């Protein structure tokens, strides 16, 4: 197919989007990611029945958490496609990159952390 998609995307493989936890998404932002998107199977086609639906719920929940913190919730999105849709995958990658570019970098990047106290 020889499709191209933006090179700034790092793919983290999980067995099912149902494995994606709120903590994983939060940690991405804590470590400086500008945006995260979860790509799951089509709704109704989950091998584990509800994995992609659970992921969508968590994505919606983390919108609220990020807004509370002061980061745009829309930096996290959920997409659905089937494993045979390479061109759609590349399209979503481009769409998400454009969207994050328009939002700018993660505001946490410029803020130094407090040194952890010695335990």
């Amino acid at each position: 197919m020889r499709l191209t998609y933006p090179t700034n995307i790092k793919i983290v493989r999980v067995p099912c989007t149902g494995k994606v936890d709120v903590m994983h998404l939060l940690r991405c932002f804590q470590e400086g990611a500008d945006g995260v998107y979860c790509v799951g199977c089509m709704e109704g086609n989950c091998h584990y029945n509800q994995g992609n639906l659970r992921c969508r719920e968590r994505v919606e929940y983390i919108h609220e958490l990020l807004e509370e913190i002061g980061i745009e919730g829309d930096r996290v999105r959920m997409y659905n496609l089937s494993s045979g849709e390479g061109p759609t995958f590349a399209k979503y990658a481009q769409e998400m990159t454009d969207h994050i570019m328009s939002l700018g970098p993660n505001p946490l990047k410029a803020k130094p952390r407090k040194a952890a106290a010695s335990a």
Partner: protein
Amino acid sequence: MIVAKRKPFAEIMAMLEGYDKVLNVGCGTCVSVCLAGGEKEVAVLNTELEMARRLQDAPLDIQGHTIERQCDREYLAELDTMIADGKFDALLSMACGVGIQFLAERYPRIPTFPAVDTTGLAVNQAVGWYEERCRSCSQCVLGTTGGICPITMCAKGLLNGPCGGTNKGSCEISADQPCAWFRIHERLSGQGRLDAIRKINTTRGWNDQTPRNLIQPGYKKPERMAK
């Protein structure tokens, strides 16, 4: 099980204003099961707080530790070495109200703040869904009410019902709220025990309005402890 829900994030942030070194203590029992204050919830809240404070240019050194139970001294003791003087300016507790108080009592020199609101005693209806069933009133009437608690389920907490607000099985406060006494009638009727509903329950003692101490039979305190 005791259930709780996390306090609004803004409220927790406001409580921790001015504190830079905080230990968030989770509880591994009831609040873990009801997904409010266990190891995972401590990690999520700590991450949120760390990020939010960094964005406010007031970085926070927050650590987390979840113990088996905050309502037992033997488990609280493991925090003693961790909370040596000066290591933390404040403690945050994700346990129920009981655990929060016991933690505050053990470390009286360090301000302790609640990160959850304790909501009651509930059953697990589905993952993440808890329904209150008991108000711990100290005078259980479930034997005569077919195992349905009118103190919890009836909006008026009537001991002799139903009232005039019962409406085709629902309570007058909402069509979604079942009438406790309608259900009690149905349950007792099914058991052929309608006689029980005719028994007049006497006035409650309101024992839950004063602090209660419970010592189980066979665990009486030695005389020296009772003083």
